[in-house]
């Protein structure tokens, strides 16, 4: 959601660039600006709150102020001191990256087939992948738990990578096939006539053109894997494969009577920052990726 705000905020600014404008226009610009500020503030307020909490000293943690009166990085030092968090961070990065790479590779091939080829069962394939995307994950957690224990992959990296891949593949196929469809068919024909083998046509012509799409898809899939809590908490039992969102739930205070609020806030900030950076850097790609197919660009 946050990705669309900057674009929305730019639109009213455009008429403002003209030297003279009517009162109606002014009113519209002001109206939209206020609306944007309200929406952005509403969306960002919890983020600010958690960030503020993470910098508060334990003694002032519950004072209810939105700006820390005593700044400290103690919470951050705390979470990095124990292996509980660092291990989870490694798990998170590793699992999300591997799942993303596999999902994007498989998704690229499937999407290319969906967009370009006519084959029996194509509609069935698209239907099935849509079905997977629509299935509520919670209903699959218990069967998955049993299956994974039986197979011996419970509480391992593959135990999380496989379900992540499964649930992000439909997203990958959909986004990528929209991109492939926008690459003119003629380009491939031209490449073939120019003497390219199908593999060369794909590598030298189609892949470079689809790169932004592949990139977008990779980011979307990565965010999905990175943010997942349900599978992470249900399919792990030790720090062996527990990812950060799940690990945070197991944080304990330094004593039995202390709430780990500060540590949780710090950990939440640590895993949110990479996503925000990603999104800010690549927001144009992501918006284009989400809307391509709908709007001919």
């Amino acid at each position, binding site marked *: 959601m946050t990705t669309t705000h900057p674009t929305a905020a730019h639109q009213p600014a455009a008429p403002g660039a003209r030297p003279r404008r009517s009162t109606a226009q002014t009113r519209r610009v002001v109206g939209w600006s206020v609306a944007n500020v309200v929406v952005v503030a509403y969306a960002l307020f919890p983020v600010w709150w958690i960030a503020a909490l993470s910098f508060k000293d334990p003694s002032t943690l519950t004072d209810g102020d939105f700006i820390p009166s005593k700044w400290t990085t103690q919470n951050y030092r705390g979470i990095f001191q124990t292996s509980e968090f660092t291990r989870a961070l490694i798990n998170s990065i590793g699992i999300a990256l591997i799942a993303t790479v596999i999902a994007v590779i498989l998704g690229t091939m499937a999407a290319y087939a969906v967009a370009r080829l006519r084959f029996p069962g194509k509609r069935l394939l698209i239907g099935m992948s849509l079905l997977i995307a629509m299935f509520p994950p919670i209903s699959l957690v218990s069967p998955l738990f049993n299956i994974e224990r039986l197979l011996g992959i419970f509480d391992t990296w593959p135990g999380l990578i496989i379900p992540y891949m499964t649930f992000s593949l439909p997203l990958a196929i959909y986004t990528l096939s929209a991109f492939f469809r926008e690459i003119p068919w003629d380009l491939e024909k031209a490449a073939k*006539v120019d*003497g390219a083998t199908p593999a060369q046509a794909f590598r030298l012509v189609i892949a470079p053109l689809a790169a932004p799409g592949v990139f977008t898809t990779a980011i979307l899939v990565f965010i999905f894997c990175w943010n997942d809590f349900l599978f992470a908490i249900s399919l792990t039992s030790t720090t062996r494969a527990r990812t950060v969102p799940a690990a945070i739930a197991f944080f304990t205070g330094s004593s039995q009577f202390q709430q780990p609020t500060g540590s949780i806030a710090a950990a939440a900030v640590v895993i949110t920052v990479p996503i925000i950076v990603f999104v800010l850097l690549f927001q144009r790609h992501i918006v284009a990726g989400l809307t391509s197919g709908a709007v001919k660009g």
Partner: protein
Amino acid sequence: MAEIVLEGITKRYPDGAVAVRDVNLAIADGEFVILVGPSGCGKSTTLNMIAGLEDITEGTLRIGDQVVNDKPPKERDIAMVFQSYALYPHMTVRANMGFALRLAKVDKATSDAKVEEAARILDLTEHLDRKPANLSGGQRQRVAMGRAIVRNPKAFLMDEPLSNLDAKLRVQMRTQISRLQRRLGTTTVYVTHDQVEAMTLGDKVVVMRSGVVQQVGTPQHLYDSPRNLFVAGFIGSPGMNFLNATLEENALRTSVGDLPLDDRTRQLLTRADAPRELIVGIRPEDFEEASLMGGRHGGHTFTVTVDVLESVGSDVYLHFTEEGPARTSELEELAVDSGLADTGVQEHQLVARLSAATRAAEGEQLELWMNTSRLHVFDPATGANLVHPEPTV
């Protein structure tokens, strides 16, 4: 450079639809052949089959002395220019034109020299390092041409290469393509739906309709002796005029009067065992204002009310409406079957091309003369031209 021979080429899709039916065509080395027809007539499919982009269901395709039915495009050594140009958007003009050479592992120096040479011919030298997105339509079209000529292939295949250009540029490029083809002497198959392009460019024109070749010949031959109603209506602009006619003893009775039959026509009609109901075709230039004809005899003179006059400077096009009894619906249906409806000829609307000296005025009556020795007579049931019989192609 090579000849291309199509023998009984048929394209049938898995759902049973036939796009191209039994096409037989021999394209000589260095010849410029045009496939023309309305959209959906199978001309592009035929071209794609020659290129190897579509499978051939039946028949044999030979390029040079090789049967290439099952060869991929890569091994056919042909170059193609697409309607959309299909330039690789992520490559510069230089890379676009050199792409085929790069795939063929031609060494860099040779490839660069060839690209420079093609760029010089096509006046693209200063644009070599730009991307296609920064070029105008005409420049992109030239890059597409350049991509084809650098390879010095056995044949050029062109799929409506000019239809995305504006009218003036199209005429310019038409001349350029013609000159280029003559200079390189490469066998060329050119697909278009524009009969003017077909007439002006080709050594040989192939008229297609619904996947079937209607007639093959030089542009002039197609114009003078169309084999059937479809070719007659499709070739020429403005198109041929058509009138319903009833065959009488010595004349063809039409809404513009009885058209006298000369001996040759009468004999041909008798030999063809012509039905009584016929369709008569006459080209716009076979009319003239009667008063300008002096005392010339022969032909048929009749009076019309001028609907619209269009002056193009050298000539004046006079539009008038066919009067008299309305066309019977049965005849109209037959005309649809025989392809008249596909040609875009408007029924009951006739066009005459008059000399610019005409005194015709809109809304007024005018005496028109018609050169009846240039009549075409068609069988409405089969569409066949009865006065220009030709062995079946």
